[in-house]
């Protein structure tokens, strides 16, 4: 089903924020909407967005490619994005990341065997005072997890797994 048919209300609400003659502005919120279900942007979804804001599919891909929170490839159910930038690294982010890799049995950029977590190293998330920290990007949007330890992270993963199962 096309995006327009699936989310008429949401699309209308998004478009209402911008002047009629500049509906192209809606492309970014629409891409978040299109990414909601699969966790990445399918070709069909990008075509739908292009049609709604009246630009070419190529222009949509160009926007998707520029911003790091849009994904063109399927990842884990949750993307765990650990900040390893300077201020966090000064507070142990690299070590945190390494132990996390060891605990999950994957390398940075990889997805766990059950397809649940993709571990990513990202640049500054504006939480430098609460390192180590990461954000999860998943079906429920983007959430911050601050002052983390490996134990608390593993616990979070099992909670997330439970909640996904419950929803099913």
């Amino acid at each position, binding site marked *: 089903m096309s995006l327009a048919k699936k989310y008429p209300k949401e699309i209308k609400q998004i478009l209402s924020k911008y002047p009629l003659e500049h509906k192209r502005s809606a492309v970014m919120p629409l891409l978040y909407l299109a990414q909601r279900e699969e966790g990445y942007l399918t070709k069909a979804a990008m075509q739908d967005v292009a049609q709604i804001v009246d630009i070419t599919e190529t222009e949509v891909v160009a926007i998707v490619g520029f911003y790091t929170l849009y994904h063109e490839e399927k990842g884990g159910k949750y993307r765990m994005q650990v900040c390893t*930038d300077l201020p966090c690294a000064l507070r142990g982010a690299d070590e945190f990341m390494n132990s996390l890799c060891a605990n999950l049995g994957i390398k940075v950029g990889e997805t766990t065997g059950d397809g649940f977590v993709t571990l990513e190293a990202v640049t500054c998330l504006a939480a430098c005072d609460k390192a180590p920290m990461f954000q999860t990007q998943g079906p429920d949007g983007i959430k911050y997890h601050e002052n983390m330890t490996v134990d608390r992270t593993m616990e979070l993963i099992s909670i997330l797994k439970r909640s996904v199962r419950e929803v099913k």
Partner: protein
Amino acid sequence: MEHILLRHRDIAEFNTLNVYKKNDGFAAYKNAVTKMTPTEVTQVVKDSGLRGRGGAGFPTGMKWSFIDNKNWPHYIVANADESEPGTFKDREIMEGNPFQFLEGLAIACYAVGANVAYIYLRGEFWELAAFLDEKIAEMEKEGYLGDKLFGGEYSLRMYTHLGAGAYICGEETAMLESLEGKRGQPRVRPPFPPSYGLYGKPTVINNVETFANVPPILARGANWYKSLGTADSAGVKVFSLSGRVRKPGNYELPFGTTFRELIYTYGGGVQDSRSVKAIMPAGASSSLILVNDEKVLDTPMDYASVRTIGGDLGSASVIVIDDTVPIDWLVNKTVHFFNHESCGKCTPCREGTYWMSNITERIREGRGVAGDVDLLLNVAKQMQGKCLCALGEFSTMAVVTGIERFPEDFKKAVSKA
């Protein structure tokens, strides 16, 4: 001392509309719209000496007065793209004291004649955007936003807009491009946004913290505000303290507070009681200030004083580096960041950050040779003064000052090879 910006630290539930209202919330806004002309509002802000809190420190009232009154409509965009490594103050303001920020934004809109404001938040502030949407809806319900406000002719609407992971969108023209639904690449300036901004219309862009300063300035007067801080840097500032300190966090202090006070009095001192080796006063974009002399720590934090010790105060995101940190490691981190965030539009930044990242990686991994340090310095200097926007210039700051001020660290790194 009572907070001016981080008032939520003094008053419980300050981020609820009722509590905010009870504490004189929106009084300045209502007074401005009903009793003052836009020019009068701008004049008060001008007189207060308020300078932009995003990093450049441009006088706020002057920026507002540049708006082109021959071309309409006008827009205001609040820069909530907080992405500089070491900066995390706007997030706390928006979470803890959202209405003061929104009220300041509303006053600014009135002052420049904008009927629509966009709040551009970095994409990672997804939950915060939803939170602000709620606050905006409450303000609409209470008659602070909408049509014909306070029984007059003025109308105002506010919308949040999420970015999607691009540091460069904090650059104001890149932000406008992004808001227009394009790749967030900076525009050539001039023309500047006050004459050619969002959708080609006159636009004022200010940082979240800047807006949060506006309601108290209007409520208590320009002279009161000027009495805080120093002659060159009026008022208070939220200092984001991070790195090797015991109590990292935001500290609202008057300009002119010393690094020593920030680090030791407020930040609880350096972790493991080590000594301070270097300070980055404006996040990853900073020069590395060499702390070889304890007196450096007694430098007052205002725009002019920080310049005397070879740095810039910028957004006042103070990263503390202790003597355990190798500077070549640090430079590799900052260069990696800028290489990742370079938008690719202009040659020196696109190629220079990539090249610098190659060399620092090499040095860091012990594959570097003596000539690499000179080459790195040379590439950085070759970039300086040639990039389209400030990002390229920023990427060279830690490199150049790191090599020049901490040569031993680099010598040691390449001698491993």
